[in-house]
């Protein structure tokens, strides 16, 4: 493939929409340089979240970052949010252009 690509991590977080204001500054604090956010619905152990109103909507946040920041984000989520909030996180290997950006 294109030699321009460098391996990074893609961290994806799905959580309650109400968490947005709390979560984004924390991501920054762990070293995330940016994020991409889409509105989502879903279902998990806490039941159906159908998006009919804010209180039952989810958001899906993606952060491209290096290994170290990915680890810090995952740890932060586990310590601060996992106990009390409906939240799911997964990490995927991704190749990016302009690695210095992430």
């Amino acid at each position, binding site marked *: 493939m294109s030699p321009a690509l460098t391996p990074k991590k893609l961290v994806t977080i799905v959580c*309650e929409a*109400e*968490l947005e*204001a*709390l979560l984004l500054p924390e991501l920054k604090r762990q070293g995330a340089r940016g994020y991409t956010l889409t*509105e989502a619905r879903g279902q998990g152990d*806490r*039941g*159906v979240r*159908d*998006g*009919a*109103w*804010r*209180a*039952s*909507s989810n958001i899906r946040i993606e952060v491209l970052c290096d290994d170290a920041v990915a680890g810090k984000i995952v740890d932060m989520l586990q310590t601060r949010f996992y*106990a*009390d*909030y409906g939240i799911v996180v997964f990490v995927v290997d991704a190749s990016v252009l302009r690695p210095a950006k992430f």
Partner: protein
Amino acid sequence: MPFEPVILFFMLGLLAGVVRSDLKIPGVVYEALSIFLLLAIGLKGGVELARHDVLELAVPALVVVGVAMLIPLACFPVLHKLGRLPRSDAASIAAHYGSVSVVTFAVASSFLASRAVPADGYMTVFLALLELPALLVGVFLARRGQGQVQWSTLLHEVLAGKSIVLLAGGLLIGWLAGADGIRPLDRVFFDLFKGMLAFFLLEMGLVAAGRLGDLRRAGPFLVAFAVLAPICAGLLGVLTAGFLGFSLGNAVLLATLYASASYIAAPAAMRIAVPEANPALSIGASLGITFPFNLMAGIPLYHWLATHLQGVLS
């Protein structure tokens, strides 16, 4: 007609949810309608406020807010001790019931209008004032002895929250512009109000239907609470109104404010300030039971109470 026609829209939404209709009102429409209703209520209040001396409201406002803070303080022990709910859940539910529901207030206004009972537009000021204090009480109850509350975050969350911004902003614009200044906007903010309320209630019915499942998990104690708490709070409202010498219409509105439970500001605030509380319980009770109860039985009951007690009190 025993019901306000707008309530039929709520029932239609509830029914559609229960039969698992594919009718879905997009979340964005919910947002837009709630912005419209908050702003319209604020504007109407502001226009009427411009006809009064604002300072005259200071003393009643203090009494109304002071008495309202008793509601969460009374609910908490009932929920925690009697209902054996964890401290955080009891505090969160108490906060919901101490705060107010804008749409219940709107339906009560509409109920009075269709019975030609006059009420003062400045009651909206109380609506705006009553949102926050109970939330502070709730957080205080949840955190007593642990003391690690981020009060500034919480205050910002509520005071800069959309319901306060739109209600207070609408009040201010209405007050500054006055009836004449607002007239060109009447076609949207006043003429469309009831139809938009009908739409919003349709949506609320759909949302409430999704909450009925939560109630099964909540158990009979919470269901009973969600019916009895508003009745007691409504009675407290009628008595407070009597003490303050409010008119019949204003008494019904105050009773409705006390009796209503928040489902906009409170869930958002509690999710941030008391995250370990289970939102299914508080929203299930306030939206799944208290909201429909107030619409269908509560408001007429507070009207009846106010009519009969007013004679006795005065």
